[in-house]
């Protein structure tokens, strides 16, 4: 769970909320812990919060790793 899910910021809303695209799905998160983030940037999401701003390569790698972990994590 520590891994974090990468997403791209699509839209900023009020009260530090933002809409992100995670592997094609949209979700709302809080960007209060990365207040400087801007639309178009990638973030690592943990428990509904952007925790770090990351670059596109790191985002792509993390997504791939997550998908693998999920596949192998099945019982």
């Amino acid at each position, binding site marked *: 769970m520590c*891994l974090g899910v990468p997403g791209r910021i699509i839209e900023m809303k009020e009260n530090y909320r933002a809409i992100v695209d995670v592997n094609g799905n949209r979700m709302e998160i809080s960007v*209060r*812990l990365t*207040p400087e983030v801007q639309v178009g940037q990638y973030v*690592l999401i943990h*428990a509904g919060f952007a925790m770090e701003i990351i670059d596109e390569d790191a985002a792509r790698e*993390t997504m791939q*790793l997550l998908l693998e972990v999920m596949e192998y994590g099945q019982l």
Partner: protein
Amino acid sequence: MASYSQRLLQVIRSTNREISLMEVCGTHTMAIARSGIRELLPPNIRLLSGPGCPVCVTSQGDIDSVIEMVRREEVILLTFGDMMRVPGTRSSLQEERSRGADVRVVYSPLEALKIAENNPDREVVFLGIGFETTVPTVAVTLEEAREAGLHNFSLFSLHKLVPPALELIMSDPEIRVDGLICPGHVTAVTGLRPYETLAHKYGKPCVVTGFEAVDILEGIVMLIHQLQNSTARAEIQYKRVVKPEGNPAAMDAIWRVFETAPSRWRGLGMIPDSGLQLRDEYAAMDARRKFNLPEMEDIPIKGCICGAVLTGKKIPTDCALFGRSCTPLEPVGPCMVSQEGACAAYYRYTPGKRKVLE
């Protein structure tokens, strides 16, 4: 890329020193098991699991307190999913739910705000389990709950800090650890400073490592390199995500809402300043105070050696119950429940399923 892994493995295999490294983070335990790295290493390089699985290190008494609390009719307990099946002394949250307790799995603490708003006549309690990565998200949630004037929302904080536990492990003469593979995302929040202190104080190298097989191999090479040169520094292998200064906004959020307190860890006992309790300004949102919950004694689970596994003294296969009466479907101890638990990782990634590094 494959040849780079091979080269790293060659470097690792070229040392004949006896080296024990601890992977602190449960996600590393999982990644290592999944990639089969443990089997690819020569016998003189040992990887030990550490105390980095939040559910696993939660003490038995604390789990029992939570179970006591959900029996109150007014309580709606919100928790992350991996806590549901963790066995308490007589029951688990899942069992309590099947008996009628209102226990709900959430993905984010923010969901608590809506649920509290929609249930004004109930008491919504968020079960706070997790380390520095999770705590800031809970801190912000509490701030927002206070701004919104929610009076029926509280936190049961079992939050813990990683460095004090590592410090205890480093100073235990029974545990031999030569270097630490440090948790990537915890450090993304805390920054490198705690590991610099640790490296300096105990003379053990620390390398903050990513989660791909190549990252882990590279981290091991960096640690071996330091050990060969008799240096003990804190370094970052996982530069793509972790900055030396961490995330100051997240650390600020933690200290606005929490202060350190003693905390009980499975396998390590009571560690001063390793837990987080709410500051006095947030006392009204402290579930322990709100419901006047007593501390409960730690009753050991018969035959389970989770505590020794979490401190690198034993490995899961040393446990007589492993794979026999204890499996992910019917877990006896927390290390078999959580995805990040060492026992679950060892069990799940049996050789046939393992993804081997080419």
